[in-house]
């Protein structure tokens, strides 16, 4: 059937009407092959205009439409919708932009009319070559795998879990809750961290749509948005999760004590243990590196002492395959190792500890039951807090972690409350106290808590040495003078770094890691929780250093992104303009594969032919431009369509 093309010129009030000769344009449009109808309309985008367009398309029995008017960026979608209601494939439309790129910028009417004539001619020639495109959909799985059960991962899991959506929450540690569950108080209001998070952990553990897998890591991933197959490995706990109630009878029986290096022999845990008092799930785990039995010796003290027969020495690691539609990486942060720089004295000078270790000291569920103690069991008389350890220095991390100033103030406050007579000093270069509460908290610590601040010239202007009975801190102050002070305890506010797990995840998932080692967002401003790989998301410190509320917010944000993309019971819409490869022409040179930023090019396992995954392609057309044999078809922007447009423009 011959094509019947309708050309509609929108007058856009005086905007187009006064700038070009509409009658002349209609006359020349009618002269082109296939044009069955040419008509001008006052305001085509108005409700009356759209109604007229629909009726006129039907009445004129048109098969394709050209609209000359404003930019397609304004109303292409509007008119595609009209075409759809008129029973024409929405892609059989071409817009000639005779307003922004013609009427508004050409003063002289004759010249404007001439350009408009050529733009319309090009649109007619192009629309003839358009192919109807389908809004294809595919089956998809709405379930989600969340890697990391810290606050970010838990928030994502809780928000995304629901009717018809299963969440798998995997955690490499024996318990969930991440770092926050091990904090005592949270700034600025010193609320109890465990009180806040325990109820969340409880909800997660008992949620009928969330399956929590502890001691579990991801090992392999295949697939794409809506259709991932993931292999996870769950390490043996050697304790039956169902039988154990965490009574602790086995801890007492275990002959092995494992001490924490920073606190020494004063406190420790057994080779069978729960990580801390109140850890959830409250189930013991055997530490195979220290258990006598796993060193080849004969000991079954825990099994003999267990009243519930929960010990399983014979347990082995298990691999499970999970089918999910989306993956969230919420692997948290690592801490800069101050041993990397001798100046910090860490690991060499006693009672030089990191902030995370201090956090364990002040935790009432921690090894000292909340007491700030030196390794000799005495309370310190003076404590130094050192800011920017391993951060804001070209030597290690050039960024500011953004939270250390605030938690260091919190630590100073906690020390003051517990040790009213102690001298407390902060060694800092600058103070990063953004947000609505931090400044108030700083003023309080400064005044009420009588904390001294010593300003250094640079984060690196500090040296920590062992003195006679004291720790000696030498620093260059802001005036450039060398100063020396003695302390009993030094706490290093170490930089938040991207942990090894995040880097492993990036490798397994084939997503990009930025310069600072954290996962890179598809769009750092508008889409900070999505990676460039469709279906793979991130939340919390996996994406960059951040505080607890921001991590929680990202957890919820990621759930929102996933719920918007994968709806239970609904199919996944594909990009209608996604490119495809003509396998008859393709020589499998794989030029396209090296260029595709979305990893959409697939080599079929069976016959090594190359194809484009329609769920991953975003229709940029980079592959089509580069294909040496012209085998890639960029739908709607095909070579034929563009050549047609060029011929129309040049006449």
């Amino acid at each position, binding site marked *: 059937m011959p094509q019947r093309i309708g050309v509609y010129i929108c007058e856009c009030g005086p905007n187009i009407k006064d700038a070009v000769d509409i009658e002349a344009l209609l006359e020349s449009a009618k002269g082109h092959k296939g044009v069955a109808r040419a008509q001008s309309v006052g305001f085509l985008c108005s409700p009356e205009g759209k109604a007229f367009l629909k009726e006129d398309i039907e009445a004129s029995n048109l098969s394709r439409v050209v609209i000359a008017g404003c*930019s397609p960026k304004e109303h292409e979608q509007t008119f595609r919708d009209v075409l759809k209601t008129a029973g024409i494939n929405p892609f059989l439309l071409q817009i000639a932009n005779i307003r*922004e790129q013609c009427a508004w910028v050409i003063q002289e009417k004759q010249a404007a009319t001439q350009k408009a004539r050529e733009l319309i001619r090009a649109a007619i020639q192009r629309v003839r070559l358009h192919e109807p495109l389908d809004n294809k959909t595919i089956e998809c799985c709405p379930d989600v795998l969340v890697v990391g059960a810290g606050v970010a991962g838990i928030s994502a899991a809780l928000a995304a879990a629901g009717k018809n959506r299963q969440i798998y929450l995997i955690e490499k540690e024996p318990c969930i809750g991440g770092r926050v569950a091990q904090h005592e108080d949270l700034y600025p209001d010193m609320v109890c961290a465990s009180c806040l998070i325990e109820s969340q952990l409880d909800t997660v553990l008992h949620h009928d749509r969330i399956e929590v897998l502890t001691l579990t890591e991801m090992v392999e991933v295949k697939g794409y948005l809506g259709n991932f197959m993931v292999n996870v490995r769950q390490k043996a706990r050697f304790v039956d999760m169902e039988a154990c109630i965490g009574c602790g009878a086995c801890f007492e029986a275990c002959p092995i004590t494992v001490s924490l290096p920073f606190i020494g022999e004063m406190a420790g845990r057994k080779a069978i243990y729960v990580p801390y008092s109140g850890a959830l799930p409250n189930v013991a785990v055997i530490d195979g590196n220290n258990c006598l039995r796993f060193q080849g010796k004969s000991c079954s003290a825990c099994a003999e002492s267990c009243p519930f027969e929960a010990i399983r020495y014979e347990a082995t690691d298990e691999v499970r395959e999970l089918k999910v539609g989306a993956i969230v990486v919420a692997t948290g942060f690592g801490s800069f190792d101050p041993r990397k720089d001798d100046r910090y004295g860490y690991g060499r000078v006693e009672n030089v500890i990191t902030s995370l270790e201090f956090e364990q000291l002040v935790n009432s569920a921690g090894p000292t039951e909340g007491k700030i103690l030196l390794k000799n069991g005495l309370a310190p008389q003076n404590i130094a807090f050192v800011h920017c350890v391993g951060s804001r220095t070209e030597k290690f991390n050039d960024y500011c972690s953004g939270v250390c100033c605030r938690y260091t103030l919190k630590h100073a406050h906690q020390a003051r409350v517990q040790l009213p007579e102690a001298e407390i000093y902060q060694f800092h270069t600058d103070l990063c106290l953004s947000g609505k509460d931090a400044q108030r908290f700083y003023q309080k610590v400064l005044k009420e808590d009588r904390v001294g601040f010593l300003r250094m010239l640079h984060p690196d202007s500090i040296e920590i040495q062992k003195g006679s009975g004291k720790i000696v801190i030498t620093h260059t102050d802001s005036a450039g003078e060398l100063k020396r002070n003695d302390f009993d305890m030094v706490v290093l506010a170490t930089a938040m770094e991207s942990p090894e797990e995040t880097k492993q995840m990036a490798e397994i998932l084939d997503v990009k890691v930025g310069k600072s080692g954290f996962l890179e967002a598809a769009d750092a401003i508008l889409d900070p929780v999505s990676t460039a790989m469709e279906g793979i998301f991130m939340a919390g410190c996996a994406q960059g250093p951040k505080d607890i509320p921001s991590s929680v917010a990202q957890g919820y944000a990621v759930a929102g992104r996933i719920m918007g993309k994968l709806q239970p019971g609904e199919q996944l819409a594909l990009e209608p303009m996604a490119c495809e490869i003509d396998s008859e022409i393709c020589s499998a040179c794989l030029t396209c594969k090296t260029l595709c930023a979305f990893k959409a090019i697939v080599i079929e396992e069976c016959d090594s032919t190359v194809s484009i995954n329609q769920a991953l392609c975003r229709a*940029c057309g980079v592959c089509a431009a580069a294909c040496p044999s012209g085998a890639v078809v960029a739908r709607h922007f095909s070579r034929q369509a*563009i*050549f047609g447009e060029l011929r129309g*423009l040049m006449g």
Partner: protein
Amino acid sequence: MNDFEPRIIVFLCNWCSYEGADAAGRDRKELPSHNLREVRVMCSGRVDPQFVLEAFRVGADGVLILGCALGDCHYKRGNIEALKRIPLLERVLEQYGIESERMRFDAVSAGEGEKYARFAIEMVETLRELGPLNHV
């Protein structure tokens, strides 16, 4: 040759430079729009070298390829792939006897109507100096 009115094919990426060209229109910038013939593509990386050759073949005196600013590509690095093709394309054009100055690749972001107008003016000036393309 100063009254020569060149015809320039302008390839504009959908996300930045097409918006930039629209912005020039909205702001009624002074630019030689009657010399320009705009072609929208999804990404500057879609601009096949054949598109450029075809544009010259069908009568263009010059070709402008405009994309997002480097680092801002909607498709991550399509504009970088486009940029990488330019040196080769220039050599091909020279072999066809087409001065490489007749083609220009640059970046115009969505808000840069002013920059778009400047590039258009500069291109027209360049082409006035070169004169019409003598088709072989």
